[in-house]
């Protein structure tokens, strides 16, 4: 399928996106109808709507696509995916573009990438998410003023027992870490 797509459109970037998105081969069926952008709750904030991004992928505009803010506006509501008349997994293509743009160092929204990294670093370490850890590491360094504004809300959460002071670690963290390590190894081999 990858070869077919490449031959048909002459876009090596199209082949790369298909390669890195499960079910991504549906992308060649895009009609450019624009249902995706029209359905997106953040479409108006995007530099390019998903429809335009797909046209740019077909046109082999790798650098432009990987540096646009489009995937970073995506909050995984899946309206585009569910409404696409051609059954293109658009949300998953956005995930693929996020991954590729991080790998290439082209990711525009550093807040989103910092949040993602803080979140998964804590997961790797403890096996569970830890909100206070995310708040202190991510917000303190990236958005100290926002941390200040969050004060009353944080207090509200704290006094109602909705914020843990310490992380929980799963019992078999070594097992989880072995699984993660293996996934990283395999990932490096294939990418």
């Amino acid at each position: 399928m990858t070869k077919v797509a490449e031959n048909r459109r002459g876009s090596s970037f199209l082949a790369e996106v298909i390669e890195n998105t499960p079910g991504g081969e549906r992308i060649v069926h895009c009609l450019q109808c624009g249902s995706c952008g029209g359905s997106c709750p953040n479409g108006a904030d995007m530099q390019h709507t998903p429809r335009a991004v797909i046209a740019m992928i077909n046109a082999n505009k790798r650098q432009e696509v990987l540096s646009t803010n489009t995937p970073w506006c995506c909050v995984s509501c899946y309206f585009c995916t569910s409404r696409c008349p051609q059954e293109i997994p658009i949300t998953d293509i956005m995930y693929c573009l996020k991954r590729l743009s991080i790998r290439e160092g082209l990711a525009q929204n550093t807040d989103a990438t910092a949040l993602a990294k803080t979140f998964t670093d804590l997961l790797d370490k403890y096996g569970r998410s830890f909100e206070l850890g995310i708040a202190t590491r991510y917000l303190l360094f990236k958005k100290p003023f926002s941390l200040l504004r969050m004060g009353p809300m944080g207090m509200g959460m704290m006094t109602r027992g909705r914020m843990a002071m310490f992380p929980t670690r799963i019992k078999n963290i070594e097992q989880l870490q072995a699984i993660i390590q293996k996934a990283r190894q395999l990932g490096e081999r294939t990418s």
Partner: protein
Amino acid sequence: MKLAYYPGCSLEVNSAAYDVSTRAVADVLGITLQELDDWNCCGATEYFSQDELTACAVIARNLALVEKDLDQLVAPCAACYLNLAKTDKLMVDHEELGKQVNQCLAAGGLQYTPGRVRVRNLLDVIYTDVGEEEIKKKIKKPLTGLRVAPYYGCQVVRPICETDNPEYPMQMDHLFQWLGAEVVDYPVKAHCCGGHMTQISEPQAFEMIRRLLQSAVHYEADMILCMCPMCQLNLDAYQGRVNSHFKTEFKMPIIFFTQLMGIALGIEPDKLDFGKELVDARPVLAAKLGAAETVSV
């Protein structure tokens, strides 16, 4: 009925009310929830944004931990539900990915056969498996006079939507009609709350939250019922920030559907964790349901 239970990180602390009320309601309905021993975080949307194989492997560890005598796993949180269901589906549909995930699991001495576990969302278990007849038999306190806005959010109804309509879901609407409430038919019930956008771009997030609150107010809802901890957190904990940002005066209680269902089933309110929401739901419940015991702190 016995299912494996995946509470997820949010239900441990910030949305403990969802966990407590889920267990209480399940108990009354005769659903046995067996918590997955030593489950790990599903990675929310953050792992898929960085590394797909690791995302799947981290999630699949939980699928592999489901005891052999159980074949269904229920996750109340929408993000956890989708991640678990999606990873299983990816492993079924994409053999190569499935093999790689199993190679990762093997490094931890685990194995998972794609498709072995059916991942369920809690609303559907209650709606379909328990069903109207059984639920109606168990009503102790009908919710007569209370106007509720069921809020489905995104990740339970999309993109894997075997049990409800992705555009116009109805299961929670029907459930609360059975329980005697007036259900508000408002247009944004499956719209997005912004997810993690509150952490990344507040103006974008606040606008998404405002639209939801405003619509519920337009339709004169007494409260919004959630089935996702992220939705509850955004609509409840950020409501004050949204009010300062837009100079609005929203005071809309946001609770989990299981909490209100518990009231209808006659469970003591203090066993349903009321009062943890930042916009207190108890005065509205007391005024509308006229039950003094509803407001006991």
